[in-house]
């Protein structure tokens, strides 16, 4: 069993090989086979990841209750210079193992689901190729032993996300959304890259003196306590971490870089479940957690992280209450939950690691119930052929399995005992309370209520009442291959919370955690959730719009603002098109053609003018030239005469 750690590289290798295989060959001959190979490869990865997890968590923790950080396999990739050598390799530590399990599980289920969902699509093979590419990149990101590898796969998941969002490339909206997702995250990655470079720049002089094993960009080097102290001494750590956080905020769609995520719902629904709910968007959270020992030395940055998280959390939850597209509601819900994770991380410190554990725990449970919600929504969309919740209704009887699993997910995300969300959200609120952050505690509590409200809203509107469109009245249950993943995820959402999580994932001092000292948190949390559900039932329980319309009318102006997502998209549109394209790009293009090129043409013109002046002494008469020649010879002779004396 010990061997599995040494062979951990197999986990990302399977999807990569399968990506090359089906991308270059199989896809062209048999689309169906491509799907099967893709799914099997993820299955193999999943099996390896599970074995790895069992092996790894089977290792005895050390005296402080921490598990070892291992790099069982790596090779030199780029040798920038001594000290900045970058290896590609596999890092095995608690959070990477955790993420590997989550990613392979969700990815396997999404692959299975997609075999049903995407059936009959012309780009079936292409879809699985990209999906494999994504899984490979995500696993590569998760196992990165140094920050450059993280950046490398960070970009690759961005690219595969771009490809998958733009899967329906003939649809203008999908193309625009994919472009937007890539460019916004790319902009954030600029910060990430600069942060890495700055970190290297300030760290390099220290590296030369420290004599510590490893290379500067290695996580083992960066999180080594001795080096951290030295780095803090430079005074630039805060800025570089802030820049790195910018990258994390872009990928995890924190305000104000969140605008790409709702639009990303233009991709196929399983893609949204895998990439834009369960895995890729938590990469930002994962990055901050990965660098947590560094972040914990800069409380200002952590506080910033935490407030941005809280704001995003509330902001997105408010918008989610007004959206009509089921996938957009889920997207805003994802934003909101990511906000939870980020603000929990921001609350933690090496002395009080509860927020860190809570954040990872929420990441873990959220992956399952949010994937389940998306896949359930996919099943509904598959049946109803519409994304609009007002076109649904009455699906409870027509799609019983989907209904049941969706209900479990709604309860889980709302934080109802005994579902997974209850435990993780509880822990986040507890962390806020213990940290003495009342704003976070109250904010988190209110958002929990809002979450219950809007989730119940889409639940009631799609399953209760009577069908409100032709599509929903003719809906039918999804095929078996789509239902299996739903059921598996439902089970995971049910039991996920019971995992003794803090035994596996910890950081820093271990004795402080686990204290469920206060019983006020679970009680308050459940109360708020039930209130949210109840209010939602009051408004939407009958599957009609009468009551909600009344509320909307009463709050007209505010409702309009919220419904239009506070006009953030328009602001960006204005800045990019009206400001940058108009006042930078267009003038430059003009300047180049007219001024710079004009200068060149002017030189040419001047030369021609000068030559036309000189042609005046050219008569074209051989005799004139002869005269010049003779006179010239004479003058030369006379000059020679005088100089020779």
């Amino acid at each position, binding site marked *: 069993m010990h061997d599995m750690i040494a062979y951990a590289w197999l986990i990302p290798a399977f999807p990569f090989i399968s990506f090359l295989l089906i991308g270059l060959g199989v896809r062209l001959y048999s689309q169906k086979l491509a799907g099967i190979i893709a799914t099997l490869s993820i299955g193999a990865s999943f099996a390896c990841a599970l074995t790895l997890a069992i092996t790894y968590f089977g290792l005895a923790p050390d005296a402080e209750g921490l598990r070892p950080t291992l790099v069982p396999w790596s090779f030199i990739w780029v040798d*920038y210079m001594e000290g900045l050598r970058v290896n590609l390799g596999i890092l095995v530590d608690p959070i990477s193992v955790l993420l590997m399990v989550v990613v392979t599980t969700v990815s396997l289920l999404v692959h299975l689901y997609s075999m049903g969902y995407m059936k009959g699509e012309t780009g079936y093979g292409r879809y699985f190729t990209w999906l494999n590419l994504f899984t490979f990149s995500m696993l590569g990101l998760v196992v990165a032993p140094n920050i450059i590898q993280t950046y490398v796969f960070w970009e690759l998941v961005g*690219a595969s996300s771009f490809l998958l969002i733009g899967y329906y490339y*003939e*649809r203008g909206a999908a193309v625009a959304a994919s472009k937007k997702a890539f460019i916004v995250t*790319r902009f954030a990655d600029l910060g990430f890259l600069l942060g890495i*470079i700055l970190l290297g720049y300030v760290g390099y002089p220290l590296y030369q003196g420290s004599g510590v094993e490893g290379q500067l960009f290695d996580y083992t080097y960066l999180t080594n306590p001795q080096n951290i102290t030295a780095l803090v001494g430079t005074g630039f750590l805060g800025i570089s971490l802030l820049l790195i956080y910018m990258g994390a905020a872009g990928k995890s769609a924190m305000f104000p870089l969140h605008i790409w995520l709702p639009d990303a719902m233009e991709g196929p629904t399983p893609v949204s479940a895998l990439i834009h709910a369960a895995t890729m968007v938590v990469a930002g959270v994962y990055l901050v957690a990965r660098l947590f020992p560094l972040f914990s030395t800069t409380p200002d940055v952590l506080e910033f992280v935490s407030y941005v998280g809280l704001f995003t959390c509330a902001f997105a939850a408010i918008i989610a209450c007004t959206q009509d597209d089921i996938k957009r509601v889920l997207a805003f819900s994802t934003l909101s939950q990511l906000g939870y994770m980020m603000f929990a991380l921001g609350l933690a410190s090496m002395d009080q690691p509860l927020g860190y554990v809570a954040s990872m725990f929420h990441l873990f449970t959220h992956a399952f119930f949010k994937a389940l919600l998306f896949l359930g929504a996919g099943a509904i969309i598959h049946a109803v052929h519409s994304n609009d919740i007002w076109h649904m209704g009455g699906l409870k009887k027509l799609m019983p399995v989907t209904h049941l699993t969706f209900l479990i997910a709604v309860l889980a995300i709302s934080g109802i005992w005994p579902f997974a969300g209850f435990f993780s959200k509880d822990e986040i609120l507890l962390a806020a309370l213990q940290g003495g952050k009342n704003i976070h505690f109250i904010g988190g509590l209110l958002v929990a209520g809002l979450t219950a409200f809007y989730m119940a809203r889409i639940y009631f509107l799609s399953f209760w009442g009577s069908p409100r469109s032709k599509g929903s009245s003719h809906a039918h249950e999804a095929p078996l291959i789509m239902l299996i993943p739903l059921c598996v995820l439902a089970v995971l959402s049910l039991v996920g919370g019971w995992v003794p999580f803090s035994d596996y994932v910890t950081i820093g001092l271990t004795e402080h955690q686990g204290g469920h000292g206060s019983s006020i948190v679970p009680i308050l949390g459940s109360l708020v959730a039930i209130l949210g559900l109840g209010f939602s039932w009051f408004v939407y329980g009958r599957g009609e719009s009468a009551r909600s319309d009344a509320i909307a009318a009463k709050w007209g102006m505010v409702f309009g603002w919220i419904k239009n997502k506070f006009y953030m998209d328009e602001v960006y549109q204005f800045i990019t098109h009206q400001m940058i394209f108009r006042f930078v790009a267009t003038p430059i293009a003009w300047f180049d053609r007219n001024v*710079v090129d004009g200068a*060149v043409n002017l030189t040419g013109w001047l030369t021609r003018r000068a030559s036309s002046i000189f042609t005046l002494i050219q008569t074209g008469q051989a005799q004139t030239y002869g005269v010049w020649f003779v006179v010239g010879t004479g003058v030369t002779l006379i000059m020679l005469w005088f100089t020779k004396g």
Partner: protein
Amino acid sequence: MGLLSWLIFIPFFTALAVILTPQPKQIKWVALIGSGIHLLLTAYTAIKLWGVISQETFTADVFAKLYFTEQYDWFKSLGIQYMLGVDGMSMAMVILTSIIIFTGVLASWHVTERPKEFFALLLVLVTGVFGVFLSFDLFLFFMFYEVAVLPMYLLIGVWGTGPKEYSAMKLTLMLMVGSAFILVGLFALYHTSGQGTGVYSFNLNTLASFEYPKSMQAWVFPMIFIGFGILGALYPFHTWSPDGHASAPTAVSMLHAGVLMKLGGYGALRIAVYLLPDGAKEWALFFMGLTTINILYGSFGAIKQKDLKYFTAYSSVSHCGIVLFGVATLNFMGVKGAVLQMFSHGVMTGLFFALIGMVYGRTHTRMIPEMGGLAKVMPWLAVCFYVAGMASLGLPGFSGFIAESHVFIGGFFGNAWNSSVAMQVMTVLATMSIVVTAVYVLRGLGKVFLGPITDSHYLSLTDAGFTEKLTTGILIAVLFLVGVFPQFLIKLIEGSVLPILNRLR
């Protein structure tokens, strides 16, 4: 004839063979076989060189270490020699050129107008390019440099499109101005070192063994750097490039953007920085400033272009800016990155222009707004275009990322002679181009390939044929291999970059 002479003259002999080929249909085959043999010989040389270089250390060298040298007196009285040699940097460039000419011949498979003259000129041109990369006598270097630049006039003027005479004339004249600068600079070096040591020679390492007075370096360095910079599209001397590329036929654009523009960066590094270290220190910030403008200006300029070739040409201006930026950082990583970027950009832009030629051959337009939804009918070309685009915006996994990250890290780390704050500010500005590049690449390609098909007659277009798949496949494989396993190239280059940097100290 030694190995390196063969490397230079195989294209020339192929050109002769092309001229003597009676059947027009066989011409392209002759050219392909010639460049194929060259590719094999290049691979052989590279492997052999790698075997030698990987055994050596270069940490203390101050002179370029040359391998497989061939040295004969040519004009003995003037100290001019036929002196060939190869080191890591020039090997990388030879590999690049060999790949580009091979794929360039493949990409011109359907040239029907005067194929004999076309292929002959193309091959003469690369003869010059190989000569430049392999000769270490500066007189010989300059001679090959002119051989490489001049055929371009005819290639664009005869086989081009659009305002071809104007573009060809502009390109040639601007490059000639650059040549004049270089020539004056070379003579200044020759004269000063000759007077100082009593030995007049054009041999690079002999010239390098003399320490030029600072006052003289201060004016010769910018002269030579700008001279080469014109060919490397240094702002504001870059305007020949959009027009020239837009008018040139496919293979010529490939060669020109892919290889010829690299002569600029190569010369700037090999001659200007290597021979004039003090001048380089003095002028580094100035040229970093100009190249920062290059990088941002090119990428912003590309956003608004309507013609695919202009679009790529501006992108080239931006990327070649990164080459010269890397040279101007005078930092080990930066300079290494500059050479890597030359290689990477050469392959990438070759791919771009090859693809543009293929698309143009089908749609008969290069205007971005007139196209749309082409991915539906030509999926292979669309994927290749996106690969090229992703490589150009520096996606890890392709060579562009390796090169750009070297340059940016190097620029940020700075050097010992210039204000590090100024260098960092410029590096940050230059790094911003990765976002702007993403904007124009995705906008441009999205318009051409994605969305609904805009014109019904596009529905009848076909996807890439065999030669086209081969052309693009080779280039993509190179981009990918260098991106995933860059260590081979990096180690190759390192040994030749170190002497240049050691001289600065």
